[in-house]
């Protein structure tokens, strides 16, 4: 009886909304390679963190006050007087850092297994756009507590637009709504942070998943499971996303949450990396903080900006650093996707590339003088050099690849 009414309801809905077919298409009959590994977890984890950010963000917005006089004290009000406010705030700040950690690992997987290659170029480009929006979102969120670094980082970042030829100065005044970073600036940062950019982010993530489910998940071997289907049209090496991958991802969620909550409850400042000390002091436009560098997930780009003496050129290089990722599918001409079967040159190149990003991240945290500047210059060159190398290596056929198997390998 109850079954009947359930199916009755189901068909009632299905006649009006594609419920069952959507569920099948995206969950119970979405096939992924049976040998996807650890590195494939970070996409789902990004969704988890996105949800955490949105839910905690909604709570914070109930009490936060976007005004120069009250922003800082309203955050302390949340930390001290709002029931569970401290938890919402720490989940949100640690969540921001976790978001970048998880997305960086997600992007690394793409480099490992050539996930950006045909037919996933658009999926990759949507991903890079997500990353750009995330950086903007994080920068704006960082401004909101109106601590010393919030204020001064906003000064620096907005001033970057001053290098735009001809209209630069007017652009800066227009962006910040006055001649200085002020109440109007804070208002727009707030509005974009809580409404504009999250909406954009959600739309982009939706498109990301639509694109993914259209082309299918790649395998760590770079083999397409769609090329080998059984008589019913099911990929022989595929397993349905629901329930198998869902339950596997849940284990990953659990492990992630253990690490995440250990930080939230025991080291929410994460030794000054997630919440920086000077930012616990209210903004003071008359006093430059002793040392200023952005939060850890931006320092690689900041190192590029700082190490170049010409400001306009520095700004250009900094933006080029992330924009160049958009073109990666066409820079890498190699036919073989997965690092498992690629040439030695690719493996070494990728290792050097990752090292250069980590070293730049370190350099951007140091005082901008002496050795860190020189190191940043060298590794900025290495960072961009990687793309030149990768193009030449694959375009001129230097790469010695190994044969790619017909079917996915079992571990």
């Amino acid at each position, binding site marked *: 009886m109850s079954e009947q009414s359930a199916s009755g309801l189901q068909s009632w809905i299905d006649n009006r909304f594609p419920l069952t077919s959507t569920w099948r298409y995206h969950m119970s009959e979405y096939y992924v390679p049976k040998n996807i590994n650890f590195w494939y977890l970070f996409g789902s984890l990004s969704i988890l963190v996105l949800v955490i950010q949105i839910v905690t963000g909604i709570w914070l917005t109930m009490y936060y006050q976007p005004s120069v006089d009250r922003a800082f004290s309203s955050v302390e009000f949340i930390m001290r007087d709002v029931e569970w406010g*401290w*938890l919402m705030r720490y989940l949100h700040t640690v969540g921001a850092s976790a978001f970048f950690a998880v997305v960086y690992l997600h992007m690394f997987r793409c480099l490992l297994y050539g996930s950006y290659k045909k037919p996933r170029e658009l999926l990759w480009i949507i991903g890079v756009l997500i990353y750009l929006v995330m950086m903007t979102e994080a920068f704006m969120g960082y401004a909101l507590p109106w601590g010393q670094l919030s204020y001064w980082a906003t000064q*620096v970042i907005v*001033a970057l637009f001053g290098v735009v030829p001809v209209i630069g*100065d007017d652009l800066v005044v227009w962006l910040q709504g006055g001649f200085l970073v002020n109440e109007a600036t804070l208002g727009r940062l707030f509005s974009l942070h809580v409404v504009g950019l999250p909406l954009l982010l959600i739309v982009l993530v939706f498109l990301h998943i639509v694109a993914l489910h259209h082309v299918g998940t790649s395998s760590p071997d770079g083999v397409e499971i769609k090329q080998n289907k059984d008589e019913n049209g099911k990929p022989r090496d595929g397993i349905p996303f629901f329930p*198998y991958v869902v*339950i596997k991802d849940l284990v990953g969620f659990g492990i992630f949450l253990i690490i995440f909550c250990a930080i939230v*409850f025991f080291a929410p400042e994460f030794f000054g990396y997630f919440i920086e000390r000077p930012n*616990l002091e209210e903004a003071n436009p008359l006093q430059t903080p002793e040392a200023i560098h952005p939060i850890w997930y931006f320092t690689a780009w900041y190192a590029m900006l700082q190490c170049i003496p010409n400001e306009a050129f520095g700004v250009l290089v900094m933006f080029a650093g992330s924009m160049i990722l958009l073109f990666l599918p066409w820079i890498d001409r190699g036919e073989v996707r997965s690092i498992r079967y690629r040439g030695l040159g690719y493996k070494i190149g990728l290792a050097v590339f990752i090292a250069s990003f980590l070293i730049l991240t370190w350099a951007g945290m140091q005082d901008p003088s002496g050795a860190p500047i020189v190191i940043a210059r060298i590794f900025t060159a290495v960072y961009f050099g990687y793309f030149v190398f990768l193009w030449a290596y694959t375009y001129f056929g230097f790469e010695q690849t190994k044969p790619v198997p017909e079917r996915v390998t079992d571990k």
Partner: protein
Amino acid sequence: MSKKKLGYVLGALLAVSFVGPAFAGMSMENPRVSHHDRDSIRKGAEHFVQYCSGCHSVQYLRYDRLAEDTGMDAEWLEERLILEEGLEHHKPMLSAMAAEDGVNWFGTAVPDLSMTARVRGEDWIYTFLNAYFKDEDQPLGFDNWVQEATAMPHVLVHLQGTPQPVFDDNGRLVDIEVPERGEMSRREYERMTAELTAFLSYAAEPIRADRERMGIWVLLFLMVMTAVFYLLYKEYWRELKQK
């Protein structure tokens, strides 16, 4: 103009980053009090009201919250902490001194101490309170190793005694000695300044101790949850492999 402004901002940052510590041979000391030690926090609050709140506010801390977190009652607040007649208990700990007075008397506004322990660190505060030394060239008669030419008078001098600097051959400060003790022994003075630090540390983040206590349960729960997921995963995938 903006190009110049960017250059100015980056330039200013570069300039400050060269300013190093003025004294060598001394180091920051840890107060060695746990943030779970409610007694020390309570005593620190009492010292604070006695010696510091004449000048300093702790604007983000409410009296009743302090009482609750240290396990004390309204009577304690009335007797030991609240000096102003009839002040409601949920009011923040504000100093009676007006901001202009601070500027007039000390040449600088007296800083609020709500966040100091998180901005500067516990070690900084504790060392600061132990780093005064006699210097006749200073308007207040004392300098401080941690905050050079500090505008804060050595308000605890009657307890500590007069601290004298010890310089090496290059004229660098290497130690501070107190030949004539005040009302307190060295031990007592260090203990008291550690308690003050514990209080300020608590004031900077009242939830900290509770947060850690809760964290243990949260982690235990998550571990159990993850174990259940893991068993489920094993179960589902065994089926899968049999197929």
